């Protein structure tokens, strides 16, 4: 069997990308995005991309670079704020955006990867999101039919991975990565630590290696924080967890 391991993002992406393809990319905001793969996608200069992900980067970061390089024609996302170039491109018709409710987007990707062509959800019933979609009543409640999504290439970021492609994510950097890993014809994973099989506890694997075709150890992670919020050491204030 050919090794899944590649030396870097450019070599992992080589031969997998083409003009007009659909790319899924993991992350929530800039948390858990495949930084090395996004840079390599920009450098590949492939055009007319349809990009599926929760966001499309943010000013100067993440998928924003691919957008700024004029490579994207259509975006499927749930939230695209803090992204001036996308705003301009959308307003002048340079980029098409299909808004998806976040949970619907997550489930469409999960369904696509699991071989489920469509499903029904209450989300969006009676809103513009349901326009043109089949609706159906179950047990007296109305639901909207949504379709599964797949991609030509899925780009994901994990914390640890082994040479078989088994992945473990870290904290909220998991987000959309596990579903996106299942929905790509070719899924490419970048990891902070790449280890030999047996070093990751089998019970702790989040994404089994079957979903991952190519893997490499990423480098120079920026992990930009969009909203740094802290509390002073001597204060119990600013406590989103409340009293305990």
């Amino acid at each position, binding site marked *: 069997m050919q090794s899944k391991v590649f030396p870097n993002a450019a070599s992992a992406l080589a031969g997998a990308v083409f003009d007009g393809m659909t790319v899924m990319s993991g992350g*929530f*905001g*800039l*948390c*858990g995005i495949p930084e090395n793969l996004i840079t390599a996608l920009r450098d590949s200069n492939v055009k007319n991309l349809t990009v599926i992900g*929760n966001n499309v980067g943010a000013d100067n970061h993440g998928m924003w670079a691919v957008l700024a390089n004029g490579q994207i024609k259509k975006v499927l*996302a*749930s*939230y*695209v*704020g803090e992204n001036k170039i996308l705003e301009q491109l*959308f*307003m002048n018709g340079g980029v098409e*955006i299909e*808004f998806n*409710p*976040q*949970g*619907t987007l*997550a*489930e469409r*990707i*999960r369904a696509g990867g699991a071989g489920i062509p469509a499903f029904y*959800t*209450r*989300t*969006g*019933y*009676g*809103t*513009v*999101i349901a326009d043109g979609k089949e609706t159906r009543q179950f047990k007296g409640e109305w639901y909207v039919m949504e379709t599964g999504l797949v991609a030509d290439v899925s780009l994901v970021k994990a*914390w640890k991975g082994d040479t078989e492609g088994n992945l473990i*994510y*870290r*904290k*909220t*950097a*998991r*987000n959309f*990565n*596990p*579903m996106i890993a299942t929905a790509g014809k070719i899924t490419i994973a970048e990891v902070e630590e790449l280890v030999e099989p047996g070093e990751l506890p089998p019970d702790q694997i*989040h994404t089994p290696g079957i979903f991952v075709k190519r893997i490499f150890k990423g480098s120079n992670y920026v*992990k*930009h*924080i969009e*909203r*740094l*919020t*802290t*509390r002073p*050491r001597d204060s119990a*204030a*600013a*406590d*989103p*967890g*409340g009293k*305990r």
Partner: protein
Amino acid sequence: MAWTRDEMAARAARELKDGFYVNLGIGIPTLVANMIPEGIKVTLQSENGMLGMGPFPYEGEADSDLINAGKQTITELPQTSYFSSADSFGMIRGGHINLSILGAMQVAENGDLANWMVPGKMIKGMGGAMDLVAGVPRVVVVMDHTEKAGDSKLKHQCSLPLTGKGVVDMVITDLGVFEIDRKGSGVVLIEIASGVTLDEIKAKTEATVNYSKFS
């Protein structure tokens, strides 16, 4: 004097019950986390994939792999768990979250909610709002009673595109608290903010409201 943002959040916190799993929206709803009543244990869910959200980190201890749905850095608690966005919205859509507290642009007297787009302005997207209001069994809206120009935000019908149809159970504004019946039997004023008169609420409200508790 109408309620301040903090007073509105404190009133919303009184909707929390011991053992609740709760999702808080951005803005005033976030302040509710600081006002959880003594003796009540509430677990906060963050829809990007975390249950058991802790406080903001101490200076110098922020972790870029640990953010809430508002992209703020946060911390974990001993009971915290992490999961994918699909599992997270399974929790939400499946009705496992007890209460969602969120902001709004408009609420209609039948419980319709609009809080995600204004035609003609740049659309940022709905994020998880449509899933939350469709899936969480009890939805409480915290919002200013009127627009800056004075127009009522509690309306006969929403003029803005909807986030959800018949999804709001309660509206807390700076002027008072309103209960809404999702099945369409209407809006009832149940509380008036300190220093506010019934006449002021009547004058500033477009929706048909049952004021019988106070008249």
